[in-house]
């Protein structure tokens, strides 16, 4: 059976994906350190600034994360056909059908794969939208924790979270959400790549997917 190459992901989406993914890794590691520092610099005056460095990396990665999130929101509105928001949500009969089809496929009840879409299936698309919404809250809580004395962040931070400590609590819980999401995401991507040899994994590097010639 012959395959044909089809362009699915724009360069900006691929950049967003890797900036988002790598910043999450950096943020989780440094975030855990900031939450519960596992080292103890016993020697005084030893040129060791562990916490300072961890926080610095955390903040830089936080800005990368914010930029990636904004890029994805931009693409939800101005991206290509497969990247835009309506394609991700069960709002059309075609998408609703795909949603249930995906559920059946993931539970090994059905085998056939919808061939009318190059982008995400609707279950994945919805999850990604939810993750971006979580990222918005993560960013707001993060900036509120970083700049509690700056007017705008103080106003919105107090309005949404009430206090620094509550913002910190939400910030920590959302980190777990991102970690659990990343785990399931990796598994399902590999699972789909094995089930349907479309080149799903390489598509996030090259932007190209493969479909059967009809």
């Amino acid at each position, binding site marked *: 059976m012959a395959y044909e190459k089809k362009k699915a992901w724009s360069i900006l989406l691929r950049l967003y994906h890797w900036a988002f993914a790598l910043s999450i890794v950096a943020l989780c590691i440094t975030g855990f350190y900031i939450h519960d520092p596992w080292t103890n610099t016993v020697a005084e005056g030893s040129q060791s600034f562990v916490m300072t460095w961890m926080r610095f990396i955390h903040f830089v990665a936080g800005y990368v994360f914010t930029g990636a999130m904004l890029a994805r929101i931009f693409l939800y509105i101005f991206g290509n056909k497969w990247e835009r928001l309506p394609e991700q949500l069960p709002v059309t009969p075609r998408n609703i059908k795909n949603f249930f089809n995906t559920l059946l496929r993931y539970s090994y009840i059905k085998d056939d794969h919808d061939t009318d879409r190059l982008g995400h299936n609707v279950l994945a698309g919805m999850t990604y939208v939810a993750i971006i919404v979580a990222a918005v809250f993560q960013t707001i809580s993060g900036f509120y924790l970083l700049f509690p004395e700056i007017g705008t962040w*103080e106003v919105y931070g107090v309005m949404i979270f009430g206090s620094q400590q509550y913002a910190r609590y939400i910030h920590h819980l959302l980190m777990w959400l991102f970690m659990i999401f990343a785990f399931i995401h990796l598994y399902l991507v590999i699972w789909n790549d094995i089930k349907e040899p479309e080149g799903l994994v390489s598509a996030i590097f090259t932007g190209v997917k493969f479909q059967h010639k009809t």
Partner: protein
Amino acid sequence: MADTANKTLDPRLNRRGFLKGCTMAAAALGLSETVVPKMVEAATSGQRPPVIWMHFQECTGCSETLLRGAHPDLANLILDIISLDYHETVMAAAGYQAEEALHDSMKKNRGKYIMVVEGSIPTKEDGIYCKVAGKTALDSLNEVAAGAAAIIAIGACATFGGVQAASPNPTGAVGVDKLITDKPIVNIAGCPPNPVNFLGTVLHFMTFNRFPALDQLKRPKFGYGRRIHDHCERRAHFDEGRFVEQFGDEFHQAGYCLYKVGCKGPETFANCPTARFNEMGVWPVSIGHGCIGCTEPAFWDTMTPFYERIPDVNIPGTGIIEDADRLGTQILGVTAAAVGIHAAVGIGKRLIKGKSGSDES
């Protein structure tokens, strides 16, 4: 000219002590020294603003901290600068006389007096949980607040509800600003608050006839505008990664950062590290105990456990109360198990059906 020779004030208060008090208050407010004479003048003008001090659900710790104030002359200053017409625990009058003093002052100074509220106000069951002189706290508050020029809520209870408002809040306790919305209110947060912050606010009000700049939570910025962590003497240990692992260990004896034993300095706003307490230059962190975040809203709910960084996760309806990281690890473990089962089912199906699982193979 200001009465710095002290002709009208309490004779026990000497000029030096009085000026010292005013200067300290000006410094706490971040005002320049040129304002000190103005403040002295306001404090000695003889027009002592009448103050009515109401106690509701509280422990009187805020009055205690004020009476044993940091500055030796502070108690005198407070009693001389303001005309404290009604204060249940300090006033000599009792019973009928006390009530009369309250009503007289309210009538005479209507629209001019400052109302100080200490303690939270219960709202459930029409507020029957707190009654003084046969009236509920809710009624007293509304009655006295109606004629007040301004309201100062002092302490964690009057500002954000305090321990009474901690979950599940059986009496429906709330702070003053949840009930009174048509008067200028300032929150002097803390359990107890630093007397300097109360004194500074009163003197600011007397000098400029308005409250100092407030933050989002109505706390005066001079006292609550900056983070404890950023002005902590142990901050260098934090930055360099030197932490107390448990109370009493060698790192604790060496005076390292209390972050890992739950100090809430990084999320608490107050001037404790700079103003300090009791004229001895002490505050909780300086004597080896972490900050418990008492100046922040709902601190009994969000700052506990006091020796952990963040609250435990409470999943409603299940009775599960668990440390966030332990719960996260458990969920991640369950997810991994689910993934393993899912993958095994796929492999099993493929083995049973032969190699026809996918249209490709």
